[in-house]
């Protein structure tokens, strides 16, 4: 991989390619996410770090996929994340689900989501992510991921939501391994 880039930091320093360890993705996602090891950029002068826009889109989709797969019921921040990923206001989501907006507001302010609504919201998100990831990744890999994701949707979740907001890095890791394979690292800026 070429070390230097044509791009500059606001401080005037040149950006170089770098592997970022434990990169805090929370600011982009609006939910607590740490990327264990990701390709990115580091400023030679100030040491600031950032990642490519294509990867930001990919990781946002993967975080949504991971939320859909998690066994416990959605908590407030995860329900909100899936709604925002769908690009819907609370009212628009309520209309799509045939429920009142207040119900959506309640989920996002800490009231427990019902198992049925949990299922429907995940199904909407899963369908949306399916299309989104197909635009980013190779169809065969997406098909495999989506089979797993759909399997996770087959049961209504009875467990109450948890406050756990740290997302499991396994999905992110598997994609990064794909990207690190020779000839597949086409996501660089």
């Amino acid at each position, binding site marked *: 991989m070429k070390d230097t880039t044509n*791009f500059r930091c606001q401080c005037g320093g040149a950006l170089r390619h770098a592997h970022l360890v434990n990169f805090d993705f929370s600011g982009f996602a609006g939910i607590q996410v740490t990327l264990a090891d990701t390709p990115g950029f580091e400023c030679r002068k100030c040491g600031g770090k950032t990642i490519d826009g294509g990867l930001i889109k990919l990781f946002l989709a993967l975080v949504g996929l991971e939320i859909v797969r998690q066994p416990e019921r959605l908590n407030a921040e995860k329900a909100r994340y899936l709604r925002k990923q769908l690009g819907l206001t609370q009212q628009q989501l309520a209309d799509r689900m045939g429920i009142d907006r207040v119900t959506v507001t309640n989920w996002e302010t800490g009231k427990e989501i019902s198992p049925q609504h949990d299922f429907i919201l995940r199904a909407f998100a899963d369908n949306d992510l399916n299309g989104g990831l197909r635009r980013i990744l190779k169809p065969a890999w997406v098909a495999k991921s989506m089979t797993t994701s759909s399997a996770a949707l087959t049961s209504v979740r009875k467990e109450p939501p948890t406050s756990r907001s740290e997302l499991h890095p396994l999905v992110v890791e598997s994609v990064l391994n794909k990207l690190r394979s020779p000839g597949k690292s086409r996501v660089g800026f």
Partner: protein
Amino acid sequence: MPGPGTTEEALKWIQESVEAGRFRTAIHFDQRLQERKFDMFDVFKAIASPTGIEPYAKGICAHGGTGWRVFGLDVDGERRLAVGVEAFLDKHKRRVLCCTVIDLEKES
């Protein structure tokens, strides 16, 4: 590395680049998002469905392109924001650097 010269051209340039993933965020852009309680979904929404765009130089053009402020609403449709970007050409490809995000509710 010149950038677009008119608002119409700039908006098309910015929207196509962000849609295709040909963009990068400035260092600390994510911190600005957190401070102002936005996330990338709000940025994407504002750029995809803008309410306005205006030239915005303010020293953001590190790549010889042109600077713009894209105005829009967050995903919830409740808060107005502006995204400061540099649109520039790199190796014949149109690219965008997202420099900052501004909370217009607090600014006004």
